[in-house]
């Protein structure tokens, strides 16, 4: 295997599904917050005691965090391509304006820089948008089921269905192909 050049790596990363380490870290932190926060509601509103429900809470938190992080990643992959298309012209213009006076730079080099920048912009934007989208979808489904649909169910089943269940639904919806 020959070693990849920098341009090839950039080109690869702009079409790859994997996200940057920073983005992945953000996904996991967000998923952790969103999986633990509902437990507080179940403690307060549905009267679950900490000592009695530690196991159920752990199960719910781990499952929810995993599913939400998965959903965010999938969602990001869907959004990234769209965003690259949308932001492309603006990024090109920015790069052109920046290196307008640089006579030494070839057109090819400028294109490479634009490609790199497009990838960067699309990566951050799709990270933010996927988190926002996943969070709002998850929160509305979770709150709706926990306090309206399944409000009269035993708290343990309510917790598992409304947190892990909603996260599973969100993860499932994020696996769409287009």
């Amino acid at each position, binding site marked *: 295997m020959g070693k990849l050049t920098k341009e090839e790596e950039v080109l690869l990363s702009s079409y790859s599904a994997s996200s940057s380490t920073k983005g992945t870290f953000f996904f996991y*932190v*967000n998923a952790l*917050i*969103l999986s633990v*926060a*509902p437990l*507080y*509601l179940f*403690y*307060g*509103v549905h*009267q679950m005691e900490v000592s009695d429900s530690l196991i159920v809470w752990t199960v719910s938190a781990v499952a929810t965090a995993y599913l939400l992080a998965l959903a965010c990643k999938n969602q990001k992959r869907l959004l990234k391509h769209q965003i690259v298309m*949308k*932001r492309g*012209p*603006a*990024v090109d*213009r*920015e790069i052109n304006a920046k290196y307008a006076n640089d006579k030494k730079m070839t057109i090819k080099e400028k294109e490479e820089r634009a490609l790199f920048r497009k990838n960067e*912009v699309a990566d*951050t*934007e799709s*990270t*933010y*948008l996927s*988190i*926002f989208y996943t*969070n*709002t979808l998850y*929160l509305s489904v979770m709150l709706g089921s926990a306090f309206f649909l399944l409000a009269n169910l035993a708290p343990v089943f309510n917790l598992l269905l409304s947190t892990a269940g909603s996260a599973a639904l969100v993860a499932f919806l994020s696996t769409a192909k287009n």
Partner: protein
Amino acid sequence: MRFLLIALLAVAINGADVGTQTKDAFILAHKQPLSTYAVENMDFVLEYGLYNVGDKAAQKVTIDDRHSFPTNSFEIIKGLLHVHYEKIPAGTNVTHSVVIRPRAYGFFNYTAAQVTYYTDNENLHVTLTNTPGEGYIYKQREYDRRFAPKYGYFFVFFLVVAPTTLGSFFLFQQSKARFPNIVKKKTA
């Protein structure tokens, strides 16, 4: 024959009626909490009821419930635990209520109140009310956790969830504003 049967029935009913009738005053008393939950430092309402089911008025009726609510465990907010009625006529009733406030939480045994009355002027009768039995006095915090509005929990929940959700939305908007959509114009 039929007439005889009817006559017998009439006699029997009359006899039964006479048998259950009391010629004197006769008081039935009850004691019951009106509040559903007893909570420390919150008002608790109790009701006493006296029914004179006898044929004559009861004289000098007293309800004494001071022994049930020792002042080191209960604070008396309104009403008396020792009341006196000069006379309760036949076939009437009296209710009396007291507002107390438990000072501590835990199980508490509500015992009977004592009722005394005179049927003529010399025959003293002593009777007891029913006993409401053992009840639980809630801790203030336990009670609040169960019954107080839950807005606080939802508020904290949204505070925890908002930074990542709304924060990511604002960051996205910022980035979107930096790279506006450029509509390509075709110039002829």
